[in-house]
């Protein structure tokens, strides 16, 4: 597939520089641009959550014969991909390039909070809809007010933090855990923001934070952290962590025998590689995200993801990313390629996606999965802001 998109890009570049071909047979394809990290700090996350879903979606739409336009014609889609090297300056330039040089019809929103926020002004200026599937921020009201073209689909920082508090508070109320929380966070924007948001929420919910430390991104040995957390004798362990340290913290906790009844790590807990690496020990682990793996749509999505891309989808933002593409797809089928109309349509309509029905309220999906848990080999949603299908939380029993 990589080769094919590369060829397609080369071909389209060559063609546009020589002449613009008309519709020799059938309708012209609709051109999509995509810019996200293929290298740099966030490349690995994008390789799991972002790029495979674009590949899957393009494959499925074209296999179906293309998008079914209002006038009854079918239009295939093609995609132009750029690597922003996890550098927001590059993201901005690539969006400009896609719009003014490649003249694409639509642009898939970039990957991660930072790159989406950085690109928001240029999306707005150029009038392209930006359905951000991988941005989490408390600035949603401010950003949506400023940029009419941006849509959020993964929820806010506070929602993520307070959901964790709710889950733990419920366990406490049921007498499953005590009130001692050990909390650590990665000292980068995301971790700091979540730690900051969750501290008062935990205290308000009647918890005592008995251990509270941060560690720099890229720390090679997290054992002092885990030892410290263990020494504080907690009932629950909460880590606002990033992928590499989510893996390292879990491994270290297992080695140290950090036995808590509620064990939470943030980003990457939902990665299939997490379950793959730790096998049965992940049973009962809580983490950010989760999906309802029981719906027929979700089952079909997971199967197709595996079949087309050769790797499993993650249990959080993967399906959201795919759903964000479905939003574009359904809007274009409904109103055509007029971008202004598409933005209008996205903000007003309800969409049938793999995540269930989606309706943007003030340019943001307010019903999202916030906490998931590994149960019987899958990472299922256990808490959300109003979605059906949450499973009851189970208590973690040793490693």
């Amino acid at each position: 597939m990589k080769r094919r998109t590369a060829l397609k890009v080369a071909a389209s570049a060559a063609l546009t520089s020589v002449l613009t071909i008309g519709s020799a047979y059938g309708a012209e394809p609709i051109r999509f641009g995509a810019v996200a990290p293929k290298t740099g700090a966030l490349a690995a996350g994008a390789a799991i959550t972002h790029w495979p879903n674009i590949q899957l979606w393009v494959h499925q739409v074209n296999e179906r014969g293309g998008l079914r336009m209002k006038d009854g014609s079918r239009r295939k889609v093609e995609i132009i991909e750029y690597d922003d090297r996890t550098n927001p300056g590059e993201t901005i330039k690539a969006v400009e390039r896609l719009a003014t040089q490649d003249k694409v019809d639509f642009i898939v929103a970039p990957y991660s909070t930072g790159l989406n926020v950085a690109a928001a002004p240029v999306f707005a200026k150029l009038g392209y809809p930006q359905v951000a599937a991988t941005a989490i921020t408390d600035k949603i009201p401010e950003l949506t007010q400023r940029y009419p073209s941006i849509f959020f689909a993964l929820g806010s920082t506070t929602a993520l933090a307070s959901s964790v508090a709710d889950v733990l508070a419920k366990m406490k109320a049921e007498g499953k855990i005590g009130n001692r929380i050990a909390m650590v966070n990665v000292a980068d924007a995301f971790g700091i923001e979540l730690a900051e948001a969750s501290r008062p929420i935990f205290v308000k919910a009647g918890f005592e934070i008995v251990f509270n430390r941060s560690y720099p991104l890229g720390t090679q040995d997290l054992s002092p952290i885990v030892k410290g957390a263990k020494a504080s004798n907690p009932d629950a362990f909460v880590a606002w962590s990033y992928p590499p340290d989510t893996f390292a913290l879990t491994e270290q906790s297992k080695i140290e025998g950090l036995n808590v009844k509620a064990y939470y790590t943030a980003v990457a807990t939902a990665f299939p590689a997490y379950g793959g690496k730790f096998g049965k020990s992940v049973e009962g682990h809580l983490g950010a995200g989760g999906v309802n793996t029981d719906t027929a749509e979700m089952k079909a999505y997971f199967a197709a993801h595996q079949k087309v891309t050769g790797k499993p989808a993650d249990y959080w933002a993967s399906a959201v990313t795919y759903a964000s593409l479905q939003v574009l797809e359904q809007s274009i089928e409904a109103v055509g390629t007029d971008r202004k109309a598409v933005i209008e349509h996205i903000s007003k309509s309800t969409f049938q996606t793999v995540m269930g029905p989606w309706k943007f309220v003030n340019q943001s999906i307010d019903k999202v999965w916030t906490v998931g848990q590994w149960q019987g080999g899958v990472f299922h949603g256990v808490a959300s802001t109003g979605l059906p299908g949450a499973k009851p939380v189970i208590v973690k029993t040793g490693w």
Partner: protein
Amino acid sequence: MTARETRTLILVVVAFALLACLPLLRHGYLLSLGVDIAMYTVLATSWALFSGPTHYISLATAAFYGIGAYVVAAGIGTLPYPALVALAGLAGAVAAALVGLATLRLSGVYFVIFTLGLAELVRQIVTWVQNNFTGSRGMYVLTSITERMIYWELLALAAAVFFIGWRVARSRLGFALRIIGNDETVAAHLGINSAACKLALFVISGAFAGMVGAIMAPRLSYIEPSIAFTSELSFQVVIMALLGGVHRLWGPLVGVIPFTILWEVIAARFPTQTVLLLGIAFLLIVYLIPNGVVGRIESALRAAQRRVSHA
């Protein structure tokens, strides 16, 4: 002012006036390329002001740039933006002064490695402070500043760099630096305080990098340590300046323009192998143009002159 200088001055003013008209084309892509070129021109030229005469290779650009960006992120909403840019310049200058005092007596590779580590050190401290004291919920710089304003600001800054570079070259400081560059021992015997001279230039380049960071912050919108303190920036500045040539004030400019365009062409034409090709391009520059474009031009000119005089 000689007639020749007057002519050059007029040419420069006209060139800047023409460049300032770029946003009027209303071509977003050209403008974003223009922003990049202007940014690297300021960074590379101010870098060369210090590194050209002293032969010190500083990889600290990202540190000062990041400090500038963070000044804006921390102060936006409490202070007016122009004040923040000035403050960022000041912060860059202070940081450069501290670093310079501590490290300019190091020689060669130690200075290079130290400045490379500096961006990391500053980044760690900033993150730690942010985590424990300010408790900020992410650093957003949401302003109404548009791309074209950023472009004009950078252009003005570029004019300032060239002006300062020109003044320095004509001043006692510039003369002293040329002697230091040729032979530091001779300079010391002449009673030149070489440490102070180097420090002065390092502070100037730090101040400019800080201001560039401040000006670019609204464009980044979301300030993260990994984004603000990226070492890639430091290396790009060095390679652009060296590609152009550091012994003429306009040398780095000759490197910045082709390099930015080359980088852009690679990113646009080979989206799946961008990094591989960027690396190869980088290597080709190091191997094939060691003395910079300006060095090439000048040696070609010299050769031509020799031929003429022999004839």
